[in-house]
C-alpha cells in the first residue's frame, strides 16, 4: 500500500505543476493508461494473500478516484485560464463608433403631417384628400370668400384659366367632403397648397396645410376649444396651454387665431417665441352657415368646427428651422438630420 501512497503523491505533484492540456494527457497515460502506474500496482495485487485483497482493491479504487479528481480539477483550472486569456486577447476599443446601417430619413414636413394624422385618427377622424388643380368654385365660392377678396387676385393665386387654379388652401377638400357625405363628418385634410409668393426665408409658392373639419348635430365652440387643447398637448407636450383670440376667416364664424404656450420656455419668454411666451400656430372657428348651406348641409340642424395650420410654420417652430427654403432644397445634410 505504501506503493500507492507514493504514486499518488508523485502524481499530485506532477498534475498540479502541469500548465497545459498536453501535459495532462501525458500524465493520464502515465498513471491511468493500460501500462500506467496504477495498472501496474493493481497487477501486483495478484501476489497478495486472498484475505488482503479486498482492502487492497478498495485502496486501489480510492486511488483511481483520487487521480480522476486531480485530473478534472487541473483540467478545469487550465481551461478556465485559457478562456480568460482568450477573452483578454480579443479585447476591443469600445469607444470606436459602431458600424451603422444607412437608414433613410422621413422629410420633416412629412413627420409633422404624420404626427398630426395619427393624433386625429385616434380621435375618430379620417384623412380626406382632394385635387391640387382646383376650380374657382371649390377654392373660393363654396368657402364664402367675398367676390372681391384679394386672395382671388392673380397676384396671389396661380391660374390656368378663369375657372381652373392651383388650390390656395386645403379647404376645398372640406367642401367636397361635405357635398358628398352626410354628417357626422370628422376629417383632416393634409396637402400641398400654392400661393404666388416669391421664394424667401419665410415664403414659398408651394407649402403644406392640414385642416380639420367636424360637422354634426350639436357641435359647439366648446368642442373646438377642447379639441384644440388636446391636439396642442399631443403635439407640443402635456404642459402646453392654448389661448384663442378672435380673428376673421371667411369660412368660419366665430373665428379665432390660436396661440400655444412656447414649448421651449413653457411660456416664460425665449428667442423661439420672440419673448412673448406664446406662439401663433393655427386658425380656427365654427363653420360659417353659408359654407354649410353651399355644401348642402342645413345650418339650422347641423353645426361644425374647422381649424387649419401651416405645416412648414409648425415644422420650423418644432425643429428650430429658420429658413423655409431648406425644406425644398433637399440637401442630404439637412434631410438626414430628421
Amino acid at each position, binding site marked *: 500500500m505504501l506503493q500507492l501512497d507514493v504514486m499518488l503523491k508523485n502524481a499530485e505533484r506532477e498534475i498540479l505543476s502541469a500548465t497545459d492540456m498536453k501535459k495532462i494527457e501525458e500524465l493520464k497515460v502515465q498513471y491511468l493508461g493500460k501500462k500506467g502506474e496504477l495498472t501496474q500496482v493493481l497487477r501486483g495485487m495478484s501476489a497478495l494473500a486472498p484475505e488482503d485483497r479486498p482492502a487492497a482493491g478498495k485502496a486501489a479504487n480510492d486511488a483511481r478516484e483520487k487521480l480522476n479528481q486531480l485530473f478534472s480539477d487541473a483540467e478545469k483550472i487550465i481551461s478556465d485560464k485559457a478562456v480568460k486569456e482568450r477573452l483578454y486577447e480579443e479585447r476591443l476599443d469600445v469607444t470606436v463608433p459602431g458600424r451603422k446601417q444607412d437608414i433613410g430619413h422621413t*422629410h420633416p414636413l412629412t413627420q409633422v403631417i404624420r404626427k398630426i394624422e395619427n393624433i386625429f385618427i385616434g380621435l375618430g377622424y379620417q384623412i380626406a384628400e382632394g385635387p391640387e*388643380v382646383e376650380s374657382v368654385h371649390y377654392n373660393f365660392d363654396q368657402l364664402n370668400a367675398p367676390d372681391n377678396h384679394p386672395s382671388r387676385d392673380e397676384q396671389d393665386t396661380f391660374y390656368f*384659366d378663369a375657372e381652373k387654379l392651383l388650390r390656395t388652401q386645403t379647404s376645398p377638400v372640406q367642401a367636397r367632403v361635405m357635398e358628398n357625405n352626410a354628417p357626422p363628418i370628422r376629417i383632416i385634410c393634409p396637402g400641398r397648397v*400654392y400661393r404666388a409668393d416669391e421664394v424667401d426665408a419665410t415664403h414659398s409658392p408651394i407649402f403644406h396645410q392640414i385642416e380639420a373639419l367636424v360637422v354634426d348635430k*350639436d357641435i359647439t365652440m366648446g*368642442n373646438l376649444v377642447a379639441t384644440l387643447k388636446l391636439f396642442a398637448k399631443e403635439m407640443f407636450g402635456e404642459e402646453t396651454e392654448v389661448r384663442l383670440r378672435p380673428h376673421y376667416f371667411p369660412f368660419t364664424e366665430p373665428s379665432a387665431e390660436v396661440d400655444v404656450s412656447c414649448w421651449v420656455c413653457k411660456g416664460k419668454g425665449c428667442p423661439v417665441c420672440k419673448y412673448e411666451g406664446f406662439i401663433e400656430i393655427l386658425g380656427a372657428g365654427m363653420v360659417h352657415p353659408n359654407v354649410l348651406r353651399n355644401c348642402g348641409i342645413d345650418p339650422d340642424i347641423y353645426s361644425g368646427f374647422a381649424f387649419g395650420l401651416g405645416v412648414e410654420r409648425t415644422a420650423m417652430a418644432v425643429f428650430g428651422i429658420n429658413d423655409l427654403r431648406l425644406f425644398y432644397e433637399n440637401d442630404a445634410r439637412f434631410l438626414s438630420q430628421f
Partner: protein
Amino acid sequence: MKAPISWLRDFVDIDEDIKRFCNLMTVTGTKVEGYNQAGAEISGVVTGKILTLRAHPNSDHLLIADVDVGDKVLQIVTGAPNVKIGQIIPIATDNSTLPKGVTIKKGKLRGELSEGMMCSIQELNLTKHDYPDACDDGIWVLKEDTPLGMDIKKYAGLDDCVVEFEITPNRQDCFSIKGIAREASAALDKPFKDKPIMLQEKGKGKADDYIKVGITATDLCSRYCAGIITDVIIEPSPDWMRSRLRNAGVRPVNNIVDITNYVLLECGQPMHAFDLEFIEGNTINVRRAADNEKIITLDEKERILDRSVVVISDAKKAVALGGIMGAMNSEITDNTKTVLFESAMFDSANIRISAKKLGMRSESSALFEKGLDANNALHAINRACELVELLNAGKVVKGVVDVHKHLPVPVRIKLDAKRINQLLGTDIPVADMKSVLVKLGMRIDKDDIIVPTFRPDITGCADIAEEVARFYGYNNIVPSLALGKSVTQGYRTHNQNVRKVIHDTLIACGLNETMTYSFISPKNLDKLGISEDSPMRDYLTIKNPLGEDFSVMRTTMIPSMLKVLAYNTNRSVKQGRFFEVSKTYHPAEILADEREVITVGLYGDCDFYDLKGIAENISESLGIKDVEYVADRENPVFHTGRCANILLDNLVIGTLGQIDYSVSEEFDAPEDSYILTMDVSPLYERATFTNTYMPIPRYPSSLRDLSIVVDRDVQSADIVKTVKKAVKGILENVTLFDIYTGGQIEEGSKSLSYSFTFRAKDRTLEDQEVNKAMDKIMNTLSREFDAKVR
C-alpha cells in the same frame, strides 16, 4: 392701424395701464401688434424762461443764461445764436435723457457751471413738419404762454402712447379711431362717447350756389358729397393736431390738408380738398376716364388712364383719380381762398383694380378697397367743416351738395340667445349679450338687433354669436370633448396604407425623402431629350407663373429628382439616396389628371442592381410577386443598355435605370445618376396585406451550383423562367450569384453562375434525384440558349 391713446380718449375713457389695455383689446379681437411712446427716450426735459443773458468770461461765442424752470433757476451755458431774454425754451436738466441714448449732466463749460442744456427740435427727435416755426439751427422757442417747469413731452405730445392694431379685412370700420374706440368701449365695459357735430356755417350763400355735382359713372360711385369753405387762410394746423397726425403716422402739411387726413383717421372716410378756383365751370362730374386720358397726380407723376378708371372732372378736365389721388391742377396751395371738400363712396373692387393697374396705392384707395359705409360720407364732411371752424381756417358755407343713389339701411337680425349659447357651448344671459351689442353701436328693438351700416360684416346669427363670444371671452368657453352624439371610426384607407407602406419601405432601404416643386420649366423636357410628340409635352401651363422656371405643371418626376442629385453632388455630398412620392399633373376634361408617382434617385457607390433591388422591395412590401422587368433600349432619358421597364399584368407601370450621360450632363447631375419612377395607382389594386404562414421545411435541402456561358444578350430572367418550367416540384429556388464578362470567356458571351436549391416536402432528397434534375436543366439550357457549362 396706429392709434394714439389721447385720440381714443376723445371717445372712450381709457385709464387702464397700457399693458392691460393692450391685452384686453387683443383678447377681444383687436390685436395689438405693439405700442410705443414717441418720447419714450426723453426724460427730465422741462420748459424754462430765460431771465438773464451775459457773456462767458472765457469764450467769445458762449453765453451764460439764468433760466427759470418753475421751481428753481438754473445757470446754463449755451452757444445757440437765437437766444433772447424772455424766451421760453426746452431745458434738458441734470441727469436728463434725450433720444439716441444721450444723457445730459451738469458740469463746467470753460470754467463756468452749466446745470443743463437748451434743446433744439432735432435734439427732441422732432422736425419742421411738426413745428414749422421752429428755428432750423438753434434753440426751439416755445409759445409765450407756456407754463414754466412743464414736461416737454406733454407740451409736444411726446407723452402720448401710440398703439398699433392689426385690423382684419372684415372690419373696415376699425381702420379709424372711432371704430377702435368703439371696440375699446366694449372691451373695457365703458360707454362710447359720440359727440354731435356743431356748425356755425358763416360762409355766404349755400354750397349748391358754388358747385353742381353729377355722377355719370353711377356703377363706380354711389355717393358724392361736396362742402364749400370760403375765406380760407392756409397756415400750419395747431400743435395738437399735428402731434396726433404725426403719432398716427401721417405727415402734417397745412390746416386744410391736415383736416382731410384727420377726418380720414378719425372717421375712416377718405376725403379730398380741391382749390375751387381751379374747378372750371363750377361743376364736378364723376365719370369714367377716356382711353389714353392723361392726368398729373399729386405725386407729380403723369398717369395714362383708360375707361376702367373713375375720375373726378370739372367742366373741362379731370381733377382727381376717384378714390385714389388728386391732381396737381387743383391742389391746395398757400394761396388757396376757397376749398371744395369731397367725401364720396367709390366701388371697392374698381378702386382695387385701378390702384393696382396704375401702381399707386394711397391711404385713400387702401380704405376704399375694403368697402366703406356710404352713410359715413356725410358725417365725415360735416366733421371736416367742424374742424375748419375750430381751427379758424375759413368760413363754412351752409349745406352739403349730396348726390347719391340708394344708401345702405340697417339690417335687422333676431337675437336668438338660445341658439347662440348652443353654438358656443355657453350659458350667457341674454341681458349680457344685449349690453355688449349696444356698446358696439347696435340698437335693440325687443328681440331684434338693428345693425348699423358700418358693420356690414354682421348678417346672421353666427356673426352675432361671434360678437357675444368675443367679449364673453373665447378663453372662458368651457371645453367639452364630447363631439355631438355620434361616434366615428378613424382609420387610413387602403390606398393611404399602401402609400404609407411604400414610404416606410423606402425609408428602410436607406433613402431620404425629398420634397420638390410641382411646377417646372418646360425647357426641362428638351433637356431630357424626349420627342416633340411625347405625351410628357402635354402639360398644364400656369397663366401667371412666378417665372419661366415655375411655369408648367410637371408631367414627369425625372427633372425634379435630377435637380436634387445635381444640388447635392455640387455641394460635395459623396453619395445620394433619395425618394419622393409625389404627383405629376396632366390635362384632363375636368380639372387635371393628377398621378401619384414613386421616384427614387441614387448616385455614388451604386449600380443598376441597387436601384432594381429597391423596386423589388417596393413590390414585395405590397405583396405583389409577379412584377416583370423588360429591357428598354429606346428610352431617350436612360442609358440604352441599363434601362428596364417595370411591368405588372403586361402594363408598363414604371421605368428604372441609369440616366443617359448627355442627359445627366444637361442637368449638371453626376454621371452615375440612377432613377426609378413607378406609378402608384396600379399598385393600389394589387397590393395585399394578408399574409399566410408557410411551414418551415422539415427536410434538408440540396444545393447545386452551375456556371454557364451564353450569348451576352440572353436575359437571365428568361433562363430562370425556363429552368423553373423544366424542373417542377423539387426545385425550390434559383439564384443568380455572379455575372462575368471579360478575358476568360469568348467575346460577345457572358458567364452566369446560378445556385439551385432543391427540396422535397416529404422526404430527404437522394443525390441521384437531384443529379437527374441538374442534367435536365443543363440539357434544356443548352437546347434553348445554346448554353455551355463553364
